[in-house]
């Protein structure tokens, strides 16, 4: 963090630099920095590192945005599939309840085995950890669902099958939407870092380096002037 000290506006260098630093009324703030050669070397190193970091973060941001749009396509597709299949499943179960009766449909649903076996893994996208959901879920054949074949109807099959499809869609949608959310947070974070480097950290360090080098030059000129004066005085004597 940088601490700032106040200087009066009409004092030498500060007046010339007033546009580059915080200007509060007539008071200008300058960074608390020692105008030494070692400080300049340190600053130059920091600037180089910041530039490198900036270009890396920019590449990361671009990569994340690219990945985001690819995932967005998938998410849109999975969402529309989910909506479409859900509507179909709702119609199928409503029809089954109407034709076979709620008691029969609910009774058949009691016989279904809980099967959605899900394993959760992670995937690394440019340093962002996103979930990868594996499920052994599949649409079962009517004789493998758990209920008897003779006492059930095609309407119940349709309702069960369409809901199995919806379950598959929910798993896919959960994966893509979580990835999307995580990518969005990561993009936002990276964007803020890139902007901070581009518009705050690097310009500030540049101006600090400029300030230090100008100060050093001025000190050099002071020294030369002083030396010349001493030389004149010694020649006059």
């Amino acid at each position, binding site marked *: 963090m940088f601490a700032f000290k106040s200087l009066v506006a009409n004092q030498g260098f500060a007046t010339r630099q007033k546009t580059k630093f915080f200007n509060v009324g007539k008071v200008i703030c300058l960074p608390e920095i020692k105008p030494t050669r070692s400080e300049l070397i340190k600053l130059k190193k920091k600037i180089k590192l910041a530039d490198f970091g900036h270009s890396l973060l920019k590449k990361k941001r671009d990569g994340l945005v690219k990945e985001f749009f690819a995932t967005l396509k998938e998410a849109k597709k999975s969402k529309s599939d989910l909506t479409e299949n859900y509507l179909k499943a709702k119609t199928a179960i409503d029809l089954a309840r109407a034709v076979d009766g709620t008691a029969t449909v609910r009774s058949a649903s009691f016989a279904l085995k809980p099967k959605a076996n899900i394993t959760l893994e992670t995937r690394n996208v440019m340093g962002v950890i996103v979930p990868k959901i594996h499920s052994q879920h599949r649409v079962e054949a009517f004789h493998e669902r758990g209920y008897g*074949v003779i006492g059930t109807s095609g309407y119940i099959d349709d309702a069960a099958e369409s809901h199995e499809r919806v379950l598959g869609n929910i798993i896919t949608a959960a994966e893509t939407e979580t990835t999307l959310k995580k990518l969005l947070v990561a993009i936002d974070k990276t964007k803020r870092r890139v902007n901070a480097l581009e518009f705050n950290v690097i310009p500030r360090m540049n101006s600090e380096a400029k300030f230090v080098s100008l100060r050093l030059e001025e000190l050099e000129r002071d020294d030369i002037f002083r030396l010349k004066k001493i030389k004149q005085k010694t020649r006059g004597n």
Partner: protein
Amino acid sequence: MELPTGFLEKAEKREKKHWFFPISFKRKSTSGYAYTNTRVRVMKTKLLGKNDFRKMMNMSFSEIARYMQETEYSKEISELATRYTNANLIEYSLNKNLENTFNRILAFSMKASEEQVKLYLKKFDILNAKTFLRGRFSGQGEEAIISQFICAGSLGRKFFENAVKKSSNLDEAIMQLKGTEYFDIAKKFNGNLSKIEDALDKHYYRDVLEKAEPELVAFLMDEIKVKNTLNLLRAKKTGIKMEKIENESETKLALPKTDDGIENRVFLKKFLLERGNKMAREFKRNVRPVLGYLIAKENEISNIRIIVRGKSSNLPAGLIEEQLVI
């Protein structure tokens, strides 16, 4: 005039006390069909007609609910109004009415007619036994299982409610069936529920075909044919090769389409129910009129349920109408 529910049982008790009570007319018939069919014919006049269903089709859901209050179902609707609302109220009332009506027929039917009615209504025992086993298999709550029972068979509501209360898993549930003909069947398959269910269904058909009169056998053979055709279509849809069964001419019925679509299902359902409705119109001294009534009553309830459920869940009017057998 129709006797109120439970009248005959009460009368029988009274008969023991008072020998002069005129209940003896019930005992004169040899097969019981004349008496049972006459009473059933009276009950048939109270079934909803084509016009009633057409009227209901043009009503909104709330109008249907109000209309139902003016029909035979009003008693059950008032009874269940505190537990259920909307379409659920009507559907559970329909189930309750079916249960009450069939139990009433069982109560007043006698001799051969009673036996045949009992045989046909055994399917509700099978359905309840399956619901009970399924519920316990997936660990459902007591209320969730009990509310799905339609106790119109020989095993009463008390039997199933006690069985549900005394068991907590499939093995215990099977043990609760001890004493019934279903225990040995359920025990045979080591907890494989789908096999138990199919075995129970097969047992029902075998048992009924063995004991039933030719008229009931003929209807059940049609039902089996329809079920086999439907299951063949289901298998075909899944891609299971069933050439052996398909080639058997017995199982074949001429269908409007070749896939397991709604058209075929509706066609087969209509094929069976129309036979039932035809039987209900006959004046014979055999099981056909009473069987016809049982089927017609089930069909009426199915039609009302289709309209009510369809309207409450905004199904297209064409789809609802397609499913009705009027």
